[in-house]
């Protein structure tokens, strides 16, 4: 995707860190895997009605796909689109495996607490999600299956899953365009199925810029008739509200 618009925001986030912001409709968030092998766990909510949230099943069954890629969309549980994938280097992103639990992190990597390691302590995706959710009045009840940007999990015929190492390379990026004003909550912890025995979460760069207006021939709305209907639902919502 060519980008002529200037950045509104730019930020590098180290591995094992967290971030949350409201990003308005009509803006794009670009995530760049700086070193290769990054994982960005992400949850999305309607910023004004936070009980409306990213819905993994509706996203998958609305688009008859098991993973995410351009030009597919991120559906909410209310028949609407939170965001569309408008640019995509890796071409496959997981959304079924969730995030790491503290017990998993301790079992896989051992324990490194703050007293011992200061800000290099070992942290779990679930804890970082809960901390950021807490700042917006949300909590455990709002934890749903998240997106794992840059991570590929391949299924076999019997439904067994395997992590594909080296899927995202240094400099790979993915850009999403927001269709609803959205609360974005993310962390850069390793994927729960990452077989790497070392705690080595990777850094990413985040950039926000203005999107071009969505046309009636936008690839994200034309890729599936379900998406066109969900875009209409989203436009109705925004029209009535704003």
């Amino acid at each position, binding site marked *: 995707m060519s980008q002529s618009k200037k950045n509104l925001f730019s930020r590098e986030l180290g591995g094992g860190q967290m971030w949350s912001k409201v990003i308005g409709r009509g803006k794009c968030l670009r995530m760049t895997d700086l070193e290769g092998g990054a994982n960005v766990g992400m949850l999305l909510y309607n910023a004004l009605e936070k009980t409306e949230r990213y819905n993994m099943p*509706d996203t998958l069954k609305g688009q008859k*796909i098991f993973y995410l890629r351009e030009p597919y969309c991120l559906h909410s549980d209310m028949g609407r689109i939170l965001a569309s994938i408008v640019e995509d280097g890796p071409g496959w992103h997981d959304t079924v495996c969730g995030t790491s639990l503290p017990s998993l992190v301790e079992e896989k990597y051992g324990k490194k607490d703050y007293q011992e390691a200061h800000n290099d302590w070992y942290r779990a995706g679930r804890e970082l999600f809960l901390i950021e959710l807490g700042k917006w009045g949300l909590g455990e009840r709002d934890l749903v*299956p998240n997106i794992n940007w840059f991570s590929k999990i391949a299924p076999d015929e*019997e439904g067994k899953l395997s992590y594909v190492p080296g899927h995202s390379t240094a400099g790979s990026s993915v850009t999403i365009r927001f269709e609803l004003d959205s609360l974005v909550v993310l962390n850069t912890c390793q994927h*729960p199925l990452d077989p790497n025995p070392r705690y080595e979460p990777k850094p990413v760069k985040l950039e926000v810029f203005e999107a071009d207006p969505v046309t009636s021939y936008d690839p994200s709305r034309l890729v599936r008739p379900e998406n066109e*209907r*969900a875009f209409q639902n989203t436009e109705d919502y925004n029209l009535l509200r704003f």
Partner: protein
Amino acid sequence: MMSNLTESQLLPENAVYEHTIRAGDHWMRRIEKGQTFRILDLKGNQAADTLFYNAEDPDDRYSASDTIAAQGALYLTTGTRLMSTRGTELLKIVADTCGRHDTLGGACSRESNTMRYAHDKEHMHACRDSFLRGVQSWCHHMDKRDVTCNINFFMNVPVTPEGELDFADGISAPGRYVEMVASCPVIALISNCPQLNNPCNAYNPTPVQVLIWD
């Protein structure tokens, strides 16, 4: 997938609880630790959309992604541990004469029906409305935030190695069942799916039966 078939030794006449859930109805009940819980597909190819909560603290509830990640597999069958968002084992599947159950497809809703099928389907009864009535009637602390990703017992949602997903014809049949033992006290909430747009139940929703043994 048929290698997963495991029959139960339990007899229906020894059950301590039995109830038939008609299509489109919801059913909610506490199940004690160690009790065995069976869902029976009476007429075949019916989807029993099911949520579980830790009865001691319903903020801790069934998690589709933690269940998938814990077993490294997409489908549920004998041996599957049903995990919560905190990593608690809620129940374990101990018998299954269907062979495969889905936890990717979620529950139908009036809103998602407008997206999936057509805008004029919005009036049709759907599972998430049943789930909402279930949690609203259970206690004052549960609401839409507690309606999360569920299990679809008896439903077949195959994924190909290329990552395509489909809603296939059911692999269940009259009399097939799935049985699980509660690893801690749980609350079960079933919406017996009224979906009339999906071929999985041949456009004919039918009753399911639940049984509990001590």
